[in-house]
């Protein structure tokens, strides 16, 4: 209480004399009664007869009286201008003040205290007309060279406002040297040392040097914990952060926030200091995929460069990108899962398109059985390899197919065409064992396992280049692995699948070793850079630098670069903490390191004093506000007393009170809010989903590709509408109205079937559109290409529609096709059909060959039957296109007599059922029925 009163003073104490007038106010208030409540009353005559029991006016109630007196007293006190923690201006000292500021990161966490102290000193200097000089203990080169100079208080205030903590450790030796050069004025300085309270090297020197200049008062902050991150180590599953503190105090708990390089928060790890302990750990468990994304870790709530740990790019794991699909971890048929299992120890995986992969940080891109590449993608990947990436390709049916018709780009050796050459046409009777690793390749030191046999492979064209580039070969000296350096990177081709389908290699331990060698072929890999010796003089320019508060900012243009050796030496003036080198794989210099040990500077002695805890505070405003609130309360109470607010319920009264209080808090607490730290950047949001996609996701809808022929679009729409109706009528599928899709922009994954009518001379779809379609097909979609030209088609001739289709398919990565076989699931999925009839002709229908990615369900149907034309009905339910007579052509069903249009609907229903149920019907469930019907005929 005494200390509180001691720090309270008044700007104009004379006004307090007005408090003596309070008794007079009491008397005046007492004499004026509150106004009566007025109400009309019809039964007035009855009242007239009543005896008037209380005609005399009531006195003001005591409670109201006291409230009003309190309001008056508050107003008087507020007018007197009370100030809390007013600066002590009563000093006759005229010596100039020398302010020594510890501005290393150790002082950053409680920088507010320094600010308060600086403004207090400025106020004191202005009041006493004293000159001020400043000196920091983490001097820049320019500072260290200059002499200590005196300023007037105004200039000092500006200089003090510009003082910010630095991300560097303190340089007491430099500061002491500077102090020694200074000459003290007569009578010496009045020295205020705004210290961080810690014992740093050469503290004694500085103390002595300052003592020679005048009387030193060291301000210390005894409560400061000064938390910092000493280091980081990565376990197999966890990242462990070492946390240190300067004072071995009580138990202390906190959290380490791990954020990505874009500032997004990834995870939090808790830490807890035992009483007396100065070190502890925080463990953060992150999914493997996110560990490479770590940009920085910081102790939450501590604004100091020491509480930030920047992640060094060299610690990152290899990032492996899959073109297309990375495969599920548990899917033992997918090659991706074997690759992932082999590389999981040192790599993180992700999947994407060629553009995304090449722009990412991936050091290795895997093409698992990817056949045709669009020219643009091939160029992109090629350029990326030239820059230092490693492209790893595995063979498979698609590659075999693609190798058949053209010179496969991005292959180390020319492949021998002929997808059908393998299997039956292979030149061996028994599977061939792995025979040798080439001396020239990276596998030279591996031992050849005896138990690896290869059953199928894609052959390379024999010749000089192939022999030269073979890294591993079979016993018949055909290559198993070929590889070639391209620019800074390399292309490696495994002539077998990554799954055990073609060989035993994926089961073998040597597979793991081979992939490891391949992964670290990359020039961008950390291993190689680590190997650079200390004499390397390559300079890494700073990308972003830490400030004292631990915030990363862009590096100034003139910031010096560092060599690896300098970076390893730790932070100093020429190598300030921050990120250096390439933004993708930066070299980090951290403010604090494992060598840093902080302890309180208790041994220094000298005169110390604590920091002022609070800045001077004007109390008039809150007092006036309180008086105002009480005044409002008084008005409310008077109303209630007068019976004016009989229906003002307790709830409403509480609401009004809350509103008033909230207003008061907002009015007074503005600076309390302003002190909240600036948060991390907001997490990026996903782009909004279009409403059509939402519609299609909610209800099943068939889709058709928009052409630039409105008549064709109309026909497609009505065709699919009629098919939807038939599906609704006949099956459990209840589709909504069909949707027209734009391949360039629309999300396709929400549709089960996309009907793509090919028009002659249509504009070719862009690469993005084709990538969109590829993705759609790869993840279970079904595309129906309909050239609608069977009527006009002549054997061997190319109709314009087919030419357009060929142009599309040439650029699209489609699985190998074959004519629709008898008993294909498409003919059995709902109706038992012999053919998928449309409106036109009997031309062949092509579907994907063999068991592809989607459980053997074909992702593509190519034909010229004009299905939509056969299905289409207009608003009046009348067919829009004529059908050929039933007599022409074969029927569609096992039994004859089904009308042609009905055949077309049955074909459509079957296609839709395949798209929706996959190979559900491809088992033999219909065999008994089939036999029975055949028997009945």
């Amino acid at each position, binding site marked *: 209480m005494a200390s509180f009163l001691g720090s309270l003073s008044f700007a104009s104490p004379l006004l307090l004399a007005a408090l003596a007038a309070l008794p007079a106010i009491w008397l005046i208030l007492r004499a004026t009664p509150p106004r009566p*409540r007025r*109400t009309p*009353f019809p039964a007035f005559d009855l009242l007239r007869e009543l005896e008037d029991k209380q005609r005399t*006016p009531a006195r003001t109630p005591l409670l109201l009286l006291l409230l009003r007196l309190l309001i008056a007293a508050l107003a008087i006190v507020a007018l007197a201008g009370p100030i809390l923690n007013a600066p002590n201006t009563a000093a006759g000292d005229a010596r100039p003040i020398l302010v020594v500021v510890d501005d290393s990161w150790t002082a950053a966490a409680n920088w507010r205290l320094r600010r308060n102290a600086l403004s207090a000193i400025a106020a004191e200097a202005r009041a006493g007309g004293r000159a001020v000089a400043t000196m920091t203990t983490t001097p820049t080169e320019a500072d260290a060279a200059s002499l200590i100079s005196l300023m007037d208080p105004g200039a000092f205030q500006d200089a003090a406002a510009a003082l910010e903590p630095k991300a560097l450790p303190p340089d007491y030796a430099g500061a002491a040297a500077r102090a020694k050069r200074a000459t003290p004025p007569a009578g010496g300085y009045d020295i205020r040392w705004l210290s961080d309270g810690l014992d740093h090297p050469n503290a004694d020197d500085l103390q002595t040097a300052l003592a020679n200049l005048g009387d030193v008062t060291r301000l210390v902050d005894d409560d400061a914990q000064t938390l910092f991150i000493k280091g980081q180590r990565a376990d197999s599953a966890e990242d462990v952060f070492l946390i240190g503190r300067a004072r071995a105090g009580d138990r202390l708990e906190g959290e380490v926030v791990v954020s990505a390089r874009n500032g997004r928060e990834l995870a939090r790890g808790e830490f807890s200091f035992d009483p007396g302990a100065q070190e502890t750990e925080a463990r953060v468990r992150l999914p493997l995929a996110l560990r490479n994304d770590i940009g920085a870790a910081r102790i939450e709530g501590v604004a100091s460069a020491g509480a930030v740990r920047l992640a060094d790019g060299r610690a990152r794991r290899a990032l492996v990108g899959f073109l297309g699909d990375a495969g599920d971890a548990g899917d033992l048929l997918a090659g991706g899962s074997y690759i992932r299992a082999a590389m999981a120890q040192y790599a993180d995986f992700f999947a994407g398109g060629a553009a995304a992969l090449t722009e990412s940080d991936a050091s290795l891109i895997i093409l698992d059985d990817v056949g045709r590449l669009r020219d643009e993608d091939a160029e992109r990947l090629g350029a990326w390899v030239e820059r230092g990436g490693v492209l790893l390709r595995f063979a498979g049916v698609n590659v075999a197919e693609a190798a058949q018709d053209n010179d496969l780009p991005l292959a180390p050796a020319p492949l021998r065409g002929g997808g059908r050459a393998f299997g039956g046409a292979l030149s061996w009777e028994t599977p061939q064992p792995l025979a040798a690793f080439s001396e020239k390749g990276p596998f030279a030191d591996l031992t050849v396992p005896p138990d690896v046999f290869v059953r199928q492979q894609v052959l390379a064209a024999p010749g000089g280049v192939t022999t030269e580039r073979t890294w591993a070969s079979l016993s018949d000296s055909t290559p198993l692995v070929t590889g070639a350096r391209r620019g800074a990177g390399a292309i490696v081709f495994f002539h077998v699948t990554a799954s055990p389908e073609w060989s035993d290699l994926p089961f073998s331990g040597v597979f793991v070793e081979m992939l490891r060698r391949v992964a670290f072929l990359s020039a961008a890999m950390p291993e190689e850079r680590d190997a650079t010796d200390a004499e390397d003089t390559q300079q890494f320019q700073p990308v972003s630098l830490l400030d004292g508060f631990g915030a990363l900012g862009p590096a100034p243009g003139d910031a010096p670069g560092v060599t690896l050796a300098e970076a390893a030496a730790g932070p100093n003036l020429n190598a300030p903490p921050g990120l250096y080198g390439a933004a993708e794989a930066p070299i980090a210099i951290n403010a604090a390191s494992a060598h840093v040990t902080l302890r309180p500077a208790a041994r220094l002695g000298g005169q110390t004093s604590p920091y002022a805890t609070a800045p001077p505070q004007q109390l008039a405003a809150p007092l006036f506000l309180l008086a105002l609130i009480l005044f409002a309360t008084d008005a409310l109470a008077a109303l209630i007393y007068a019976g004016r607010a009989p229906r003002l319920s307790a709830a409403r009264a509480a609401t009004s009170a809350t509103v008033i209080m909230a207003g008061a808090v907002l009015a007074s607490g503005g600076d309390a809010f302003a002190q909240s730290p600036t948060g991390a950047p907001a997490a990026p949001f996903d782009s909004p989903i279009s409403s059509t996609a939402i519609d299609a996701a909610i209800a099943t809808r068939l889709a058709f590709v928009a052409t630039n022929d409105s008549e064709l679009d109309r026909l497609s729409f009505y065709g699919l509408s009629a098919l939807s109706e038939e599906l609704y009528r006949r099956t459990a599928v209840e589709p909504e109205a069909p949707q027209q899709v734009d391949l360039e922009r629309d999300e396709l994954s929400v549709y089960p079937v996309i009907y793509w009518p090919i028009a002659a001379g249509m504009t070719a779809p862009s690469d993005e559109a084709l990538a969109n379609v590829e993705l759609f097909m790869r993840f279970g979609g079904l595309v129906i290409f309909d050239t609608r030209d069977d009527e006009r088609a002549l054997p061997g001739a190319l109709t314009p529609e087919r030419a357009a289709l060929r142009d599309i398919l040439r650029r699209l990565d489609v699985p190998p096709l074959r004519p629709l076989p008898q008993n294909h699931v498409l003919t059995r999925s709902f109706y038992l059909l012999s053919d998928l009839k449309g409106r036109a002709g009997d031309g062949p229908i092509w579907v994907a060959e063999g068991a592809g990615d989607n459980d053997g369900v074909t992702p593509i149907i190519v034909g010229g039957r004009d299905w939509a034309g056969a299905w289409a009905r207009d608003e009046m339910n009348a067919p829009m296109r004529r059908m050929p007579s039933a007599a022409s052509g074969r029927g569609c069903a096992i039994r004859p007599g089904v009308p042609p249009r009905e055949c077309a609907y049955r074909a459509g229903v079957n296609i839709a059922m395949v798209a929706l149920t996959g190979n559900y019907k491809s088992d033999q469930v219909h065999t008994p029925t089939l036999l029975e019907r055949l028997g009945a005929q």
Partner: protein
Amino acid sequence: MSASAPYDIADLRRAAAVASDGFDALLLDAERLARTVAAGAHGRRRPGPGETFWQHRPYAFGDPAATIDWRQSARGAGRLFVRQTEWEAAATAWIWSDPSASMEYASDDRFETKRRRADTLAVALTMLLARGGERIGLCGGVGGGQERPFHGRGAAERFLEAIAARGDTDTTIPTPQHVAPGAAATLIGDFYTDPAEVERAVESFAAEGAYGCIVHVADPAEIEFPFAGRTEFQDLESPARLTFGDAAAVAADYRAAFAAHRARLGELCDSLGWTFVAHATDEPATTALLSVYVALSDGARAA
């Protein structure tokens, strides 16, 4: 709007619309109210001229042949029956609704004003009675009771017009007037005036041979007297004011006075064989209407 002032047509129309709006609603209220009470003309429970079948009587000499119910007669063996209808005689009902300013009061938005409740009751009663074929007269109308009573289908509307035309007066009791013997009188109001005057007025009706009932309409605040603290009461009919230091202190006395007021009215009715209905505006109007209707029916039967 005085006649000397130039007519502002728009103002007039607006005022008319506002006024008729209120009346429409009141009519509707009254109609809804009237429908809850069994409709129809009350018969005299004796044969006579009327519409409804009353009884079959064996043919007696002198009955006009046209009265013979041939169908009924054909059922019996050799006897002729005459069809008789119930005598439905129209009586005149006089209704008085208190036009004084003290009726213009509602203590809460939830309640209607007493005037509105009284008028609703009056109009609803008019509807009911008109439907029963009675003739209805308004006591203290513009013509001072000289105009002829209304009857027929439009009686309710015309009665309402008459009430509206009456305007604000400060008559707190019905003026005595000549009524036919056997007529029914219904007086609706709050009767805050000299009890002797009330007695005189009611007795003048009774002296003419009328039976009837008194409906005392009161606001809940008048009954409960929920006031407390320093309160100034204003009279609605005069500029007089009364201030009480603590209204709660006189509440008990007031309630006693109010009860006495009602009791006085009740005794008056008892002594004349009339019916007294105490009604508060927070109660549904139906109860009061039913009481009045039953009282009038019983009175008519007794007469």
